[in-house]
């Protein structure tokens, strides 16, 4: 067999070995993830938590600040997406109401002129 052919064949074998090692044996590990990478059901529960807190605090600024950790999308969109997902997977009606209330409040929410304050 031609030497160059063998050479490139070994490169391909090495490439395969390297990718198997990098993707399967020792893939990149994300230990310090952010809420934005959470799986959708966890994100939805996170939104539910925010809705539960909002239900008693009625602090829209706080809710917006917390929602911002999940996504850069507009807060109301995050909540509406979670509402849809919660409905899809069978959230309790009272939980859906909480999320719905948060969505409704955020639809009329206006940010503070001075920015979000903790």
């Amino acid at each position, binding site marked *: 067999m031609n*030497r160059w052919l*063998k*050479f*490139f*064949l*070994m*490169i*391909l*074998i*090495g*490439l*395969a*070995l*390297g*990718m*198997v*090692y*990098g*993707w399967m044996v020792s*893939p*990149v590990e*994300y*230990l*310090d*993830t*952010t*809420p934005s*990478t*959470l*799986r*959708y*059901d*966890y994100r*939805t*529960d*996170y939104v*539910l*938590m*925010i809705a*539960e*807190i909002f*239900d*008693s*605090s009625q602090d829209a600024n706080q809710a917006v600040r*917390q929602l911002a*950790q999940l996504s850069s999308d507009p807060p109301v969109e995050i909540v509406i997406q979670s509402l849809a997902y*919660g409905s899809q*997977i*069978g*959230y*309790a*009606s*009272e*939980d859906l109401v909480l999320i719905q209330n948060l969505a409704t409040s955020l639809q009329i929410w206006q940010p503070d002129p001075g920015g979000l304050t*903790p």
Partner: protein
Amino acid sequence: MTQEIRRIREDGNLPRKGYWYLLTGLVIGILFGLIISWVIAPVKYVDTVPSSLRSDFKNEFRSQIASAYYSTNNLARAKARLDLLGDPDPIQALTYQAQNLLDIGDPTNTAFLLAFLTSALKQNLGLSLEVPSPGTVPENTSLAPDNTNTASPTRITLTTTSGTPSKLPSNINTPTLRPSNTPSPTPGVPFILKSNKIVCDSPLRSLLLQVEVTNSANQPIPGTEILISWSGDEDRFFTGLKPEISDGYADYLMTPDVVYSIQLVKGGMVVSNLTAPSCSIEGGITNWGSINLVFQQP
């Protein structure tokens, strides 16, 4: 001999440089493979779990759980959410976070919420979930999806202890906790100072201003906010953050020769002129004691 080798090489029967070129190709290939798999197209974890969150986000998550619990009083849900974080000891993690917050002045005012949840968890530590009798809950009744990497939520059984609940849609038969017996102060009744002792043989550290708060039934009350002031400055701390001592216990590290006043924020008398007691002086070194105050509702 040399001519013979040269002749064989020229015939192609013996590589001029052995088989190193094969190894070189393999190494190059592996390097490219690693570059592709680690740099160019690494495995992407877009569907992560809360236990993989960075520590500060875990703290935020715990605060959210505590806040949500304070709003809903749903302890089963709070416990399930805490389990998602994968802390070996959730109570300890909550306590540690609350103490850290107090150390930095509690800028987010969540130490109380964390202490509140800690106390509730501790109170319910011995309680088991009331699992509905067979037949009322079908097999694999949903409490929450499991922890697999599937996009669609799966189910876990109520009776198993393994598996981490990941989310809590509660349209299902959520386990009902037995009523909590968390001691609480009687509304409106101010606390009185039941005792004020100097402690010189404290097994704990010296220079502590120890506060114990109990209700009229002498049960310790966690989550009681205490205001301490000195020389125009003030700080706040809470009972319940050292449950290993008592749910109604809190302490504050005093500075020698500083005069403190404290008051329970919920109401009660102001105790002033508190200063670290000197228990003994040995070789010119002062052995500082602690002060133990017990507040109780009449």
